[in-house]
């Protein structure tokens, strides 16, 4: 193996693989990320799928990207801008031009930078770099297409089949660039192509040639050495994205509660992958029904809950809008139900493949009547597992619908995840009826302390009962239109939800607790907020972060925390929905806002700028 002369030592680095949707960039991005994680790096990844599924080859609409940040520790986001870009064609270069750091390394397949290719990507001149204003970057033009053809000639792989391995050449080059040995990649390819030995052989050959090409011609660029953490957490790890973590969190809750898991769902981007994953998990006993629409999806789940399953429905914003009436039914019938909204850009069809946090108000208030439900949010891809678990636990133990908000960013983003041991998670104990309660039992009879009613599943003799959307009498559980009773039942339903504040963790403050500015966020922005706050403190500016995962009810200490700080800024990927909610729930506080609605996550740099200004004001 070549000995590198110029090796850059880095704490973290951002790499972006980009090409046509058929170029296999997601695959090599994934392999490289997992490989780095096994070597002791922290990783955070984000795939960026093409806007159009069948865009013509080589055009901007068809660009598919995969970004990963790898580092020694504290990697919480895939990074704002790239240090290294692999651009398989001019469209990929163009699509990523704005996301490059000034001195970044850009590897291009020069065979696909012909005049024809430049035209397809709407370049006006022959020099795409100048045209894009990329004058300081280090370009590594590599004839990938031709080298791959040559590489595979001996193996008898030709034409289109050969070109499918271009991604492996790029991976080989990147491995050389980052000092990863071919031996460390091999197991990943062996696993991937276990059933296709010929494809495996071809890919390994091209990978090797890509690596050697880098080693032999490296003169012009430096290679990187990314620090690995000195103390790594021990255990068995895998790589998980937020949607799969959500799916597994639900399975975990069902396992822990000893219930069968039922999912009613209707496909919608970016939530569909949860349905995909759970549809596959039949060995774990998961029942999935792909329904005719979102209303049916939640209604089958409500039926399954009535019948005694852990019932879930998954969707995105437009689907949540359709489910509103049925959520009200679950509130009224006081049945456990988990509703997962993977938020995307709205309103209406909006930006289906882009991220946003603009469904919070809908989740909190988007129903007729006084209809309190629990609202929680996951903060990172792996936190989706925990929040899906705890959303289920709250739903089952408090007999209520719980809405879990994730978003396109954490749903598709992934990171390394220590495979959980369910013994480390708390038990789930739904309030089942017991045989000794049969005498005089009524379906809306409550535990007077928690205000939770008891769950009698069909099939148990002596507990036959009727529930429904009509108001019931507090004592007798029969239909009632009595004014005072409606007030009493409304209060009871509200008290039941408010009481959940006693069962959720307190709001924690991280960063510098003596800070001048408290940053407040919720859900999927955690990585960026955390990183920005850390950067501020590293540079001697005192900033703290309070990040909400529980939004209704709010943690019991919310007012106490917020009232400690003179300056508070609420940062959200919406126009200020949590800020509005907090102003209502914690009267008298002054909140600044930092809002962005571009279908994109925050950038750490823009947050740092914002916090710096606030401190200086």
């Amino acid at each position, binding site marked *: 193996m070549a000995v590198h002369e110029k090796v850059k030592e880095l704490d973290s680095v951002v790499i972006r693989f980009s090409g046509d949707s058929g170029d296999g960039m997601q695959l090599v991005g994934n392999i490289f990320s997992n490989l780095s994680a096994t070597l002791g790096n922290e990783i955070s990844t984000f795939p960026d799928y093409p806007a159009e599924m069948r865009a013509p080859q080589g055009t901007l609409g068809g660009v598919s990207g995969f970004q990963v940040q790898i580092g020694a520790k504290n990697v919480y986001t895939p990074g704002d801008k790239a240090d290294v870009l692999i651009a398989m064609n001019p469209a990929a270069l163009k699509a990523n031009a704005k996301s490059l750091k000034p001195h970044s390394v850009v590897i291009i397949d020069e065979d696909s930078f012909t005049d024809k290719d430049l035209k397809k990507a709407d370049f006006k001149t022959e020099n795409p770099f100048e045209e894009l204003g990329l004058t300081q970057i280090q370009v590594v033009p590599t004839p990938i297409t031709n080298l791959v053809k040559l590489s595979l000639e001996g193996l008898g792989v030709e034409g289109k089949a050969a070109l499918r391995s271009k991604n492996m050449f790029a991976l080989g080059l990147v491995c050389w660039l980052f000092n990863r040995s071919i031996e460390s990649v091999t197991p990943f390819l062996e696993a991937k192509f276990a059933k296709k030995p010929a494809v495996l052989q071809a890919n390994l050959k091209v990978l090797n040639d890509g690596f050697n090409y880098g080693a032999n011609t490296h003169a012009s660029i430096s290679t990187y050495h990314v620090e690995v953490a000195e103390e790594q957490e021990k255990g*068995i790890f*895998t790589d998980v994205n937020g949607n799969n973590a959500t799916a*597994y969190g639900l399975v975990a809750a069902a396992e822990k509660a000893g219930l069968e898991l*039922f999912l009613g769902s209707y496909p919608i981007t970016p939530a569909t992958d949860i349905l995909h994953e759970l549809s596959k998990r039949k060995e774990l006993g998961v029942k999935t029904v792909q329904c005719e629409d979102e209303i049916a999806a939640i209604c*089958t789940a409500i039926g399954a809950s*009535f*019948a005694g399953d852990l019932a879930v429905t998954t969707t995105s914003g437009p689907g949540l809008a359709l489910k509103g009436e049925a959520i009200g039914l679950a509130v009224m019938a006081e049945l456990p139900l988990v509703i997962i909204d993977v938020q995307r850009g709205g309103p209406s069809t909006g930006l289906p493949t882009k991220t946003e946090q603009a469904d919070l108000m809908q989740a909190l208030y988007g129903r007729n009547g006084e209809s309190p439900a629990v609202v929680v949010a996951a903060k990172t891809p792996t936190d989706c597992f925990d929040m899906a678990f705890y959303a289920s636990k709250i739903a089952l133990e408090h007999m209520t619908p719980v809405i879990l908000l994730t978003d396109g960013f954490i749903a598709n983003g992934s990171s390394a995840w220590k495979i959980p041991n369910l013994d480390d998670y708390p038990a789930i104990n739904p309030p089942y009826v017991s045989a000794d309660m049969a005498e005089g039992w009524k379906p809306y009879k409550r535990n007077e302390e928690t205000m939770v009613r008891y769950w009698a599943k*069909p099939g148990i*003799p002596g507990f036959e009962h009727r529930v429904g959307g*009509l108001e019931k009498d507090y004592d007798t559980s029969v239909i009632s239109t009595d004014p005072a009773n409606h007030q009493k039942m409304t209060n009871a339903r509200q008290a039941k939800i408010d009481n959940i504040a006693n069962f959720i963790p307190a709001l924690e403050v991280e960063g510098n607790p003596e800070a001048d500015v408290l940053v407040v966020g919720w859900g999927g922005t955690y990585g960026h907020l955390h990183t920005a706050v850390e950067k501020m403190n590293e540079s001697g500016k005192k900033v703290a972060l309070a990040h909400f995962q529980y939004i209704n009810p709010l943690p019991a200490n919310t007012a106490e925390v917020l009232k400690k700080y003179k300056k508070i800024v609420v940062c959200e990927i919406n126009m200020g929905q949590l800020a509005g909610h907090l102003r209502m729930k914690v009267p008298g506080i002054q909140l600044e806002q930092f809002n962005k609605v571009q279908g994109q996550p925050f950038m750490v740099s823009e947050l740092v700028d914002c916090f710096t200004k606030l401190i200086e004001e």
Partner: protein
Amino acid sequence: MENKQYTAGDFKSAAKVTWCPGCGDFAILSSLQKAMAELKLTPENTAVISGIGCSSRLPYFMATYGFHTIHGRGSAIATGVKVANPDLSVWQITGDGDCLAIGGNHFIHAVRRNVDLNIILMNNKIYGLTKGQYSPTTERGYVTKTSPYGTIEDPFVPAELTMGARGNFFARSIDVDLSTTFDCMIEAAKHKGASVVEVLQNCVIFTDGVHDYYSDKETRPDRTILLKHGEKMIFGANRDKGLVLDGLKLKVVTIGENGITQEDILTHDATEADNALHYKLALMHNEGLPLAIGVIRNVEAPVYDQEVKAQIAEVQANKPQRKLRDFLLSGETWEVK
């Protein structure tokens, strides 16, 4: 353990029945309670699910498990109940508005999936609960509060819609014909898969008498035909009329006239998979043809809730993991020691 024999009375709840005096729903409720007793169902293993409407109040009057849900969504909720616990006997109670207007989509898909539900559709050709607006089964030209000059829409024929949705069981009855309603319910419950029983129901307030042409005791034998599987399609007060095929159309003939004998009359085969004749029978309506009542179609097909179970069992037979952790460990992992 001793198996208690339940009577129709055991399926009655303590709740006061709130329908208008004379409403056809009373008879349907009573037929249902009798059918459940006859079927040897137990209240604890029976779930009655409804949407919203006068008819949908029915679960409150039953001593079984019951769920009065939201308008139109009964089919979807009942589907969830049945998939979650296929051991329950699940009955969906619905009205023509609940089932065919707001709930039309869920209804056709529950039928298409062939979920093992017994769907009792109480068809009074009007929105009763909201006080008299026309429904998807109201005849063209009928005057209601929202069609003061007569409707300008053609109605659905529930049987046609059911079969159009690839339905495998359809039966029709009239509220006043308690024994046919009872028989249809029994057959519906025995049929595995989605069973639709349409009961023509009189709303004394808004559509009083809409079904009189067929339900009137005097003329009923001549204007309706009770179809029975394996029997000749014979009807009439004198049992001398029968149905034959004339080209592609059904025709009424008189036995003993023009050389017609019993032999010439069609025999009803409810189990025939080809639904062409079932369609024709279901669509008979005036023009000299009798209204078909009884079980028109009763065909076996794969049952959704059983298939859900079977598929899980099949996958489990080939994959050893039952715990989440074992599954995760069987995937792509790495260990940090």
